[in-house]
């Protein structure tokens, strides 16, 4: 009997095994989207709670990892929708090694501001593909949309970012 089958039958130890196996991957994915460790922890717990709730409908031969990533992505996007952009900017880590000129700091602030002005569904694509270097295919699978839809979102996001930066006198 596989771990998934035992979990579907209500075995809490099997659930713990699943949790230990996947928690790092789920947390790592969420924190790349929400960029806030404590929110990522809450959402990781929420993701596995959803898995526990749906255990009787789980396909023992299904891809648990893909299911978890899809749920984690949706929860993370919901979190971005609820959060204020200022809160998200506040949680950004500051790289102390960067001793920038005022101009460079302004450019970085403009980039952050432009990114935060995007809607969560566009921002997620930009963050995962351009900042975290995830592939379009991985992002498409996690969002439950086609590869071309991800590329279209990226195109739209780039257009908006270009416009926002031009309004601040910056060029891409």
């Amino acid at each position, binding site marked *: 009997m596989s771990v998934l089958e035992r979990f579907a039958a209500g075995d809490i130890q099997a659930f713990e095994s699943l949790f230990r196996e996947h928690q790092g991957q789920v947390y790592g994915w969420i924190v790349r989207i929400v960029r806030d460790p404590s929110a990522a922890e809450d959402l990781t*717990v929420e993701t596995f709670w959803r898995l*526990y709730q749906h255990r009787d409908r789980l396909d023992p031969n299904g891809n648990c990892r893909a299911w978890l990533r899809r749920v984690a992505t949706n929860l993370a996007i919901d979190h971005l929708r609820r959060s204020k952009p200022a809160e998200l900017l506040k949680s950004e880590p500051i790289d102390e090694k960067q001793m920038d000129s005022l101009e460079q700091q302004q450019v970085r602030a403009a980039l952050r501001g432009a990114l935060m002005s995007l809607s969560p569904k566009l921002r997620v694509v930009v963050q995962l593909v351009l900042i975290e270097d995830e592939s379009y295919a991985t992002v498409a699978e996690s969002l439950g949309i086609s590869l071309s839809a991800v590329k279209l979102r990226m195109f739209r996001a780039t257009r908006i970012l270009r416009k926002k930066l031009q309004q601040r006198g910056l060029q891409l």
Partner: protein
Amino acid sequence: MINKNEYNAELDRLRNDLQSAIPPIANTHPRRNLWPRLLQRIETPPLHVSFRTPRMPWFDWALLGIAATSLVFFPALIPALLYHL
């Protein structure tokens, strides 16, 4: 209209600029063991939700009442309301 090469070059520039403004997340592991929190969540009984006493502030009820009364006395507002929804 930009061609594919220009677009890809623009994406590369944007990637570099964004990564310098917002560095990729370095630590992708949780800071603590989350299993006890999950267990606690599982063991916590769900909140009792009563349909008789929904948790809605009194001013929401007042607004709802005013809106409903307005629609009763001024039915011409309904198309305008639907248009704006």
